[in-house]
């Protein structure tokens, strides 16, 4: 453990950057353990609050580490925590992307690309289904999701802001009517 809060933030967060396989959900449990039980930066209840805040604001949900850094050491803490989480994984991704694009055209490159593509498609649809389950808005959520999907098939270049604004408006209106 380090007494300097900025160094402590790096020590806690940077390793999580490289173990976050399959996205941010892999880091929530280990980060909670470090922040709450080991370093006593915040309480368990506060951690859940950070989670909720990151969920309702734009940006990746993993930006809860930004707020954690803010709570621990102000603006410098927020900056350090954000960089510690995103720089290591991004550096790795950059190197792999470069190598990847250099070998475009070879047979094994095509095989990897063709082999991974349906898995990526399966993951996208699975991810969508999981969000709908967590939302707990029942059949309405499914109707809305399929309606948005149908609209995009009909008008592929429809601006996402229109969809997002429409989705928010429908839910607010229905919540006001039904209570």
């Amino acid at each position, binding site marked *: 453990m380090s007494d300097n809060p900025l160094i402590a933030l790096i020590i806690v967060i940077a390793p999580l950057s490289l173990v976050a396989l399959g996205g941010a959900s892999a880091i929530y449990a280990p980060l909670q353990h470090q922040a709450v039980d080991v370093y006593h930066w915040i309480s368990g209840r506060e951690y859940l609050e950070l989670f909720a805040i990151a969920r309702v604001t734009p940006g990746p949900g993993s930006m809860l580490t930004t707020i954690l850094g803010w709570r621990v050491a102000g603006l410098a803490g927020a900056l350090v925590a954000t960089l510690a989480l995103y720089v290591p994984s991004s550096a790795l991704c950059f190197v792999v992307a470069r190598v990847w694009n250099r070998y475009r055209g070879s047979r094994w490159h095509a*095989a990897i690309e063709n082999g991974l593509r349906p898995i990526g498609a399966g993951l996208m649809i699975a991810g969508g289904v999981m969000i709908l389950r967590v939302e707990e808005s029942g059949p309405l959520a499914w109707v809305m999701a399929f309606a948005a999907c149908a609209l995009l098939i009909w008008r592929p270049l429809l601006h996402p802001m229109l969809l997002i604004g429409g989705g928010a408006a429908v839910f607010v209106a229905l919540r006001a009517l039904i209570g």
Partner: protein
Amino acid sequence: MQKNVTPVSLLALYKLFFGVGLFSFGGGLTAWFHREVVLVRGWMTNDEFFSGYSLAQLLPGVNSTNMAVYIGQHVRGAAGSAVALAGLLSGPFFIVIAAAVVYNQLVELPGFTAAMSGIATVAVGMIFRIGMASMKGTVRHIPSMVALVATFVAVGLLQWPLLPVLLTLAPLSIAAAFMHPPQKAPHE
């Protein structure tokens, strides 16, 4: 092969990712990237985009930041990656801090949680649409369809842990694609 001859300016790259980052509620980010980079700007082909998506999934880190790094690298190399990542995160960085400061007032706002749910469901619709777009060229290739359905069932329905599923299915799917390459599908 890039379609455009003049290189994309770093400022244009920053602006694009800053804009998408600001409105990236609820997780429709990949769909939004696809719209801007493939459909509107033509910086990448469908194939290049979706192969980057698979890489972003397999590598550690958040999908959206990995995707930004991949797109930035493709368009403008190292500087492009750094600019795309900075653009994506710089808006949300300040918003998330501001939201933390006023969080208690925020959830009291009438309709706030409902609006957030509405946004999330629409984002799912965007994800479904792009999932379908990436399936194009897959449907007539049996090993690909098997891999797609197996991934969806294991992760989406059975909710098995992602990593073992990927480490099992990815090598099998790649081997199948190596031995029986799918026919090239025409681009959208």
